């Protein structure tokens, strides 16, 4: 009986684990002369949905995997974010008020910690959740400050890219097998 009680007390929190099946992450930086978008499809992620409606999320991508269509700009981005030392960009956070399975589109706020260039910043990220084939599709976009992440902004013609950059994502999660 005591063993039963102990097992019940020590049991891990009940929840549904979701795996990221596919998706893209895109960064956008703006220079006076042009806009640069880099996208990666090599995204890893998991989400743990709990019965109380909170969902813990972790998503990350290798900085080197972002492709802007311009090899030099990709290289500059890796230089500026010190990719050899900090190879991942990551978002961790928690959503609340989301009960799975979703019946309809829902908007929620991810209270997140974003990590880039070895620096962490907390950020509230608005997320749109939609039911998707056997899972959930999450789309989001949020601005951030390159200076806040101590990213030495690349420059062209002595003009630096804007401090304000954007990260957008389109991710599909399914129940882990």
């Amino acid at each position, binding site marked *: 009986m005591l063993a039963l009680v102990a097992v019940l*007390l020590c049991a891990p929190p009940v929840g549904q684990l979701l795996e990221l099946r596919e998706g893209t992450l895109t960064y956008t930086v703006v220079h006076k002369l*042009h806009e640069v978008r880099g996208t990666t499809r090599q995204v890893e992620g998991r989400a743990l949905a709990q019965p109380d409606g909170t969902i813990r999320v972790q998503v990350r991508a290798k900085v080197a995997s972002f492709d802007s269509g311009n*090899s030099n700009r*990709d290289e500059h981005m890796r230089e500026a974010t010190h990719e050899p030392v900090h190879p991942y960009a990551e978002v961790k956070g*928690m959503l609340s008020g989301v009960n799975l399975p979703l019946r309809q589109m829902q908007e929620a706020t991810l209270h997140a910690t974003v990590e880039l260039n070895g620096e962490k910043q907390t950020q509230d990220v608005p997320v749109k959740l939609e039911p998707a084939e056997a899972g959930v599709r999450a789309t989001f976009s949020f601005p951030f400050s390159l200076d806040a992440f101590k990213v030495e902004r690349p420059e*062209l013609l002595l003009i630096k890219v804007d401090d304000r950059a954007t990260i957008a994502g389109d991710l599909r999660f399914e129940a882990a097998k």
Partner: protein
Amino acid sequence: MIALAVTLVLSLQGEQPAPPQPAPEDIELLPTPAAPDAETVAQQQQLDRELRTRRKMLQLHQLGGMLTLATLGATVIFGQLNYIDKYGGGGDTGRWYDWHRFSAFTAAALFAGTGALALFAPSPLEKRKRLDTVMLHRIAMGVATVGMVTQIVLGFVTASKGGSISQRDFALAHQIVGFATFGATAVGFGVLTF
């Protein structure tokens, strides 16, 4: 007995304060990447140092590129004025000759220095080879380099033909190659802004 156990569990849970929610940064749902060993860390730091050096050199390359384009533009203008002065009814006063010569030497030196900054910058990261603005820049600057070398040779040859009838033909060739070289340099510069 089971009811007792359940009651006990529920009562124990009820008495305990709600467990504190972990901060978002404490959540680890994905496997943590393996920590690099000392050798890998040293390699990463070396790579990072090389990238910093590369960045500084390429920033200077940009500055050199702007100065090169400006001096090359001046060289073309002075060269055209010199051509008109000599062959276009300007009286062959020679007043633009030194302007053209000095701007040409300056442009050639800046061109070589700027090119060297790009050529000798460390390039430790593997890059995809494809037709993008950087590739177009390299192609255009390759054409411009051939033009610069040709211009230096043609410039000296043209100058050495003073008094000869063929000097005008060499000067015309020098003029045409000069405009082409400036055009290739301008394209190489401009393509990076897209």
